[in-house]
């Protein structure tokens, strides 16, 4: 098992039309081992950038990131990432896609491991199909299997169900909880779907935009199996929504004349 993720004073900016635009400012966040944290924010609040920095795909300008005590300096097999698009290689069969990260594993074990995770996401029988033959939901399942196959301690999910229809999305959320019960890995998800956040998270991090800052952290004290129709569930949803829509909030500065 891995350790906790510790982010301190993270800063990141982009150059837009030769002007410096800060994307993330003073992000402090600690995620415990095995914890499920969901980051919600408007599009453009830098939440995906934050996830990419944790993945090691982008470098912060200042601040420290430690995972299990070790500083993050690039991608690593201790982290797996699931993107909004499935990002399967169109030219590889599903099995070979899932085995993509298994370069360090003995050749003869690769297919077996790939099959194990394919059956975990209920894709048995599709080993030799190409991604174009799968539906959106099935492709995303395959992408989850690929991320799990390397057995990362930390799973980073960048709006993984954002492109799916509402019903498939709910199905996938249930699936993710089932996988989590099995894997016990730390999960860090980014979304703008408040319902999804309350359904999945142990803690929700609310981010404000331009620059992206941590606005609030909300502990979700709901039972493991959550009822989307319950009053408590609705209460949490309203609480999160309020951060975005209450009057006089810093978000409303976007609309000043």
């Amino acid at each position: 098992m891995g350790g906790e993720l510790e982010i301190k004073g993270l800063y990141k900016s982009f150059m837009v039309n030769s002007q410096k635009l800060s994307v993330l400012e003073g992000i402090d966040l600690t995620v415990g081992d095995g914890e499920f944290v969901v980051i919600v924010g408007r599009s453009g609040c830098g939440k995906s950038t934050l996830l990419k920095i944790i993945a090691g795909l982008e470098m912060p300008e200042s601040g420290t990131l430690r995972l299990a005590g070790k500083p993050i300096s690039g991608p690593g097999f201790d982290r797996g990432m699931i993107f909004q698009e499935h990002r399967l290689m169109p030219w590889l069969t599903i099995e070979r896609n899932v085995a993509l990260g298994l370069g360090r594993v003995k050749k003869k074990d690769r297919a077996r491991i790939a099959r194990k995770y394919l059956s975990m996401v209920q894709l048995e029988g599709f080993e030799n199909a190409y991604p174009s033959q799968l539906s959106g939901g099935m492709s995303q399942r395959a992408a989850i299997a690929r991320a799990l196959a390397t057995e990362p301690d930390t799973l980073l999910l960048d709006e993984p169900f954002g492109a799916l229809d509402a019903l498939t999305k709910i199905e996938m959320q249930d699936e993710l909880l089932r996988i989590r019960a099995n894997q016990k890995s730390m999960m860090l998800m980014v979304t703008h779907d408040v319902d999804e956040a309350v359904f999945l998270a142990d803690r929700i991090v609310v981010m404000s935009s331009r620059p992206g800052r941590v606005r609030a952290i909300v502990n979700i004290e709901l039972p493991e199996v959550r009822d989307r129709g319950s009053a408590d569930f609705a209460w949490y949803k309203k609480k999160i929504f309020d951060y975005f829509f209450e009057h006089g909030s810093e978000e409303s500065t976007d609309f000043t004349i």
Partner: protein
Amino acid sequence: MKNKPLSILFSLILPALIFSAWHFATVAELVPTLLLPRLDAVGRTLFEQVSKGSIIKDVSISLSRIIKGYALAVAIGVSLGAVMGMSRIAEKFFSLTFTSIRQIPMMAWVPLLVIWFGIGEKSKVAVIFLASYFPILMNTISGIRRTDNGLLEVGRMYQLSRWEMFRTIYLPSALPSVFVGLKLALGISWMAVVGAEMIAASSGIGFRINDARALMQFPVVFCGMLAIAVVGVLMDAIITAASKLATPWERVR
């Protein structure tokens, strides 16, 4: 057109119309046979040349030149194109030189190449190489460059080496574009070899056409042109089939 024989038949309608128009125009003597020989005369010459084997010999000489020059262009064009597509520095290093050379029409190379290599095999192979190299290079570069950044990020997540990145992401992603280049280059190299053989050669189908023109054997000229067209269509079909074999994932949907 789901029915295959029917669809082939359909695409043969226009050629059939053209040949019949040719036939009736010459039989009715609407055009002098000196300008357009009669179809049956061309047919007889073609039959003669095929049975004697002379046209097959001419075509195979030209084809063997194509295979040499084209193979060289494929090897260098694809590998250098891959390097230039993946590395900005390599692209910058070669770009100006290649763009300049590319402006020179392939036929303008012939006099120089003849001085360097003589009128034999080498100069023809060099012309074919020069003609087919750039379409292959350019299409390989653009194919590599258009590789989806999202897929490359996945490769980086799994710490794939540069070679693995090339083999599992860049190359398959670029393949359809590479094949566009290969197809284009094959057509151009066919033109290049015939052109070069017409300017300076002592064998090959281009030489035969030019020789027949000088001897006023117009049916032979037409036979040569027909042979070029037929062989070109066949080679195009071969490349198309190869491209389908190389990209099986493009066919399943």
